[in-house]
């Protein structure tokens, strides 16, 4: 004799989940499953976060090395790149656009990477360059762009490399871009690069004072520099320049 569907009858040999104690045990087991899965997911998520942070640090260090390869001969330059990076990121944050260009800091570091393509006799020439030598010198933004553009995460960085000698009024190179044709991070770079050059000792002149340097930035706002970038930089300069991370090198 066979019961018809078993759904309404309780099998005396195996009461199944209709038995309260068995029901409770099964519920308990499912709760344990859920907690175990949750814990595993949480721990995996934090492992991934750590791995990602490690990877990002490694990437930054690699890009720094790449930038320094180009300019390793000059201790000044190494510190200059790092200061440009720090100042540049500070201005990007002040303008509220840092998150829109996450790889901008790599562009600041690599801006002169293209100089590997410029002959040493031109790079190191003590006197003024001839017209022909200038033409060669002015290829370095595009050479740099070709180097960096091939790297997947460095799209914005490549734009900075290409446009770091453009000027707000269109008189720069290589493309003579004007105003917002110039990518914003490149406009930021121009200001911090000039500022750092002015406020550090160079072989041919001592560092300008902070006020003098800021005065120059304001004087050239609208021609060489984007006035909004200069405006954003002025309050920052007071706080970061004296501390200057790392310190400007006196000579």
């Amino acid at each position, binding site marked *: 004799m066979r019961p018809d569907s078993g759904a309404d009858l309780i099998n005396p040999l195996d009461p*199944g989940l209709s038995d309260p104690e068995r029901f409770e045990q099964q519920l308990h087991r499912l709760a344990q499953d859920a907690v175990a899965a949750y814990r595993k997911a949480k721990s995996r998520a934090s492992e991934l976060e750590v791995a990602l942070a490690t990877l990002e640090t490694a990437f930054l260090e690699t890009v720094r090395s790449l930038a320094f390869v180009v300019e390793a001969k000059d201790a000044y330059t190494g510190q200059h790149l790092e200061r440009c990076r720090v100042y540049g990121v500070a201005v990007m944050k002040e303008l509220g656009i840092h998150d829109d260009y996450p790889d901008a800091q790599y562009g600041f570091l690599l801006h002169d990477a293209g100089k590997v393509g410029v002959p040493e006799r031109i790079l190191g020439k003590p006197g003024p360059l001839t017209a022909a030598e200038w033409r060669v010198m002015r290829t370095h933004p595009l050479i740099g762009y070709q180097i960096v553009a091939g790297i997947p995460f460095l799209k914005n960085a490549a734009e900075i490399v290409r446009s770091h000698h453009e000027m707000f009024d269109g008189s720069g190179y290589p493309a003579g871009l004007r105003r917002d044709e110039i990518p914003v991070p490149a406009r930021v770079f121009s200001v911090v690069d000039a500022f750092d050059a002015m406020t550090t000792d160079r072989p041919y002149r001592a560092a300008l004072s902070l006020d003098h340097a800021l005065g120059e930035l304001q004087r050239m706002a609208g021609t060489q520099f984007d006035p909004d970038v200069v405006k954003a930089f002025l309050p920052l300069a007071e706080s970061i320049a004296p501390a200057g991370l790392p310190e400007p090198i006196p000579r």
Partner: protein
Amino acid sequence: MSDSKGRVVLVVDDDDMIRRLVRTVLEADEFEVTEATDGESALALASTTEPAVVVLDIMMPGLDGVEVCRRLDHDRVKVIVLTARDDPDLENDCREAGANAFVTKPFSSIELLDLVAELIAT
């Protein structure tokens, strides 16, 4: 006929709540589920729906689970025994009847899903 290409699981248990629970767990991992409440209909469904895996209770009225296990075509279907009886002799009988796995109730949903995935992959 199912078009899930090997992701059909047949759940056999006379306990309505167990079947519902196992169905919920399997469907959450995107398996297609068919059900039987006793051994005879299990064998009939196994040949018509061609499941990849059968989750099989042992203590059912009528044809018992070990016999059902024996009669299934093990070249076409894998068997997970799911029973309240935590008994090594029973486990032995089941394995000799061709069962691929032996799980006791209360069961872990994660362990069941891992087993089903593993058996389908082999």
